């Protein structure tokens, strides 16, 4: 599998012209080590209770964010990427204490924000600002743009209306609008313009940190690129750190110095953007990258995880949370199979487990009974597998499917092909120069990282 995007970042047209990530990351490295990061998130947990009944008895918890750690230095842009449901937005809102974390620690400029109140909380609220995703609902439709941008000032006690007005007009001009726009209402602006105004509103209190939750995902093409460039320009000019949430890897690539990749409430890999995206280490990062279609029409290959079902965050899989979909699942120690064959068998197991039965072998697909050959053909299983134990397990499972007993088939497979990925929870591995939460990077596990083309 080749991914053109790596080619792209190497292509001469991109890097030298615009001073993007690599230069910025270089600058950042020069910051002396004794200075503490602007935002430190340590083992953050934000769980939402699932309640039932009149008395709101807790019957479960959605582990939206489950042990996330990262830090952002002054003026740095840190990106969180992941699919919907990965917990990236909850992480961002928790970092601003808009969702109450249920565990962990968040420090801003060295001080914990978990128990801030009164004047300290107000000061924090001034220094950390939010830009929301949908420009169409980012503004109160009943307030003019001038009122909206001045609102942070008024809320924090600046009663001098003339001074507010002066600051607001100055800012609107900086983001490419005109001073005459202050008396217009939000619906008179396009999506891109609204997002510019949202950026102006986030800047008005001189923040040190802007949390931008998918700020450009409602925009397309050139407008998106435009707003992104504006945000980048302003953050460099005012030395503002940005926590940037996005599902679009290409956007993060262009904007962020460092990124963290989230899956089911955890950061599975983090590091400098160009390193992570050029040489992704975690199988999930690789899956994400390989799912983005290439701009090269002759390269139409897309990566396929073992299963398509994203597990329920209230009941995440044991061990590594990605193991049910991981194309690089670690085989049992004594099993030595060809990689492709192992993938096929693993896909067989987790497809059954996720109940994603293909049409051909559905229990009541039709009148014709399912026979063994059909099952093997559907999953691409050879009739003979060069490992006795696995072969037996697969044989039993196939037989069970033919009998219509899926439960037995699942049990037999789980028994025959156990994996360390399911048994134990990976810690951030050390085999890579950056934290990667995968057993393949854990020296104590007998599995080597697979190469990334």
């Amino acid at each position: 599998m080749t991914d053109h995007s790596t080619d792209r970042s190497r292509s001469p047209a991109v890097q030298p012209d615009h001073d993007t990530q690599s230069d910025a990351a270089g600058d950042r490295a020069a910051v002396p080590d004794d200075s503490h990061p602007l935002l430190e998130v340590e083992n953050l947990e934000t769980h939402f209770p699932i309640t039932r009944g009149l008395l709101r008895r807790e019957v479960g918890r959605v582990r939206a964010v489950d042990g996330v750690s990262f830090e952002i230095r002054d003026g740095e842009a840190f990106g969180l990427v992941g699919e919907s449901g990965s917990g990236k937005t909850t992480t961002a809102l928790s970092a601003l204490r808009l969702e109450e974390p249920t565990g962990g620690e968040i420090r801003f400029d060295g001080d914990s924000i978990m128990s801030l109140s009164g004047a300290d909380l107000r000061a924090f609220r001034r220094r950390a600002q939010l830009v929301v995703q949908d420009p169409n609902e980012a503004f109160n439709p009943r307030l003019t743009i001038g009122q909206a941008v001045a609102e942070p000032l008024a809320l924090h006690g600046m009663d001098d209306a003339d001074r507010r007005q002066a600051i607001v007009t100055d800012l609107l001009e900086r983001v490419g609008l005109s001073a005459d726009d202050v008396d217009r209402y939000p619906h008179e602006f396009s999506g891109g313009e609204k997002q510019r105004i949202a950026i102006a509103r986030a800047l008005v209190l001189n923040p040190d940190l802007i949390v931008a939750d998918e700020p450009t995902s409602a925009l397309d093409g050139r407008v998106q690129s435009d707003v992104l460039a504006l945000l980048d320009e302003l953050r460099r000019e005012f030395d503002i750190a940005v926590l940037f949430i996005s599902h679009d890897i290409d956007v993060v690539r262009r904007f962020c110095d460092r990124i963290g990749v989230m899956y089911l409430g955890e950061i599975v890999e983090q590091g400098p953007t160009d390193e992570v995206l050029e040489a992704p280490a975690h199988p999930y990062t690789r899956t994400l990258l390989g799912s983005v279609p290439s701009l090269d029409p002759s390269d139409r290959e897309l990566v396929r995880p073992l299963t398509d079902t994203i597990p329920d965050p209230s009941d995440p899989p044991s061990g590594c949370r990605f193991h049910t979909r991981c194309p690089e699942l670690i085989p049992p120690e004594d099993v030595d199979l060809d990689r492709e064959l192992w993938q096929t068998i693993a896909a067989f197991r987790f497809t059954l487990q996720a109940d994603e039965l293909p049409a051909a072998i559905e229990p009541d697909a039709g009148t014709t009974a399912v026979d063994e050959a059909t099952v093997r053909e559907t999953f691409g299983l050879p009739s003979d597998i060069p490992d006795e134990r696995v072969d037996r397990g697969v044989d039993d499972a196939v037989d069970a499917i033919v009998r219509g007993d899926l439960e037995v088939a699942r049990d037999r497979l789980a028994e025959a092909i156990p994996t360390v990925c399911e048994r134990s929870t990976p810690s951030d591995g050390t085999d890579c120069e950056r934290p990667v939460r995968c057993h393949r990077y854990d020296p104590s596990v007998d599995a080597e990282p697979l190469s990334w083309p």
Partner: protein
Amino acid sequence: MSEPDDPNRFERVDWDEIDRSGRLHTPTRTAFIVAMVLFAALYALESSNVISLGWRLELLDWVILLGVAVLLSLVVVPAVRQRDLTLRVLGRLVSRPIHAAAVGFLAVLSFVAVVGPIIVGSPELAFQHRFHAPYGFTSEAGWHADCLGTMTAGEGVTRYCEGSLTYPLGTDHRGHPLGHLLIEGARIALYVLVFTAAFVVPLAAIVGILAGFRGGRIDDLLMGYVDIQLCIPAIVVFFIGYMYWNVSLLLLLVMFGLFSWGGIARLVRSETLQRREDGYVLVARSLGASPLYIAKRHIVPNITNTLIPAVFHLLALLVLVEAGVAFLGFHHIELYSWGSTIQEGLDPPLTGIGFVMDPHEIWWVSTFPAIALTLTLASLKLVGDGLRDALDPRRTH
């Protein structure tokens, strides 16, 4: 961290210098407190006979006065403070002739209801002047002991008394001029409007916003209560109260007022639930805005599209309910509601002189209050719709 002259900052604001202590005294709050203090002082002084207002105020009048104080401080003071916005909204409101006419009618109604009773006083019994026809119409001469207009030529039932300018709208069976009765009815309608707007609507809005904004148990409790309340017909409660206490307009207002806001509260709640997820509410929270601020500045203005028509519908409904109850006869005998006047015109009581009159023979007694009632209800609905459109900047006129 950064110096005041840091060129990388576009604006320096020393937040420590900005005083937040003065923020507790917003003009609206001040006006509210002042109005309440004045009201309490007036009530204490009057009831202990230290001062006299020249006429006796009943409990109902005090309640309505309190309502006026509430409306002044919560509606009029903010409206005056945001003069430009108010003028623009009013301008948009009256930009369509039909809405302008409705606003005009309600303004005249309020003016007449306040000033009218002071000028004309309360209607007095004048049986000798009963059943005078409006000016330009005639009534049977035999009904009148004393015809104020010209008598037409003729005998018996063909002899008519023409209406006179003394009673331009005619009189009823007690000789009350219809004009006076209309003014009295307007006053009652205004009482209903003030009571509803000052007490019932805020109650509904507060409960709805609280339930929608807080959610959780508070939501369950409040909405559970609203559901129970919606199951109890207010009229049954009113009749129970009617059996045990003195019948009064206040009883009617309290009973119907307390049992009629559930629908609006539910509406406000569901709108609040949607609004609180909007980005600007999240941004306001990230700026440290208090729930009260968010409710006032971001939630209430954005639910006016459904709230305003619903409120004006409720106002119209309660005016109609009052008229209906009075029509059925369950009203205080000294209050001349439009409803009771209509009833007396449709079913004229025997007056002791032996005449049995058909309703159409004294059509003016029921028709004028019915027209007034209809115009009031229609105006309320029109103003509600007009105000909704006028408040929404997205609607172009």
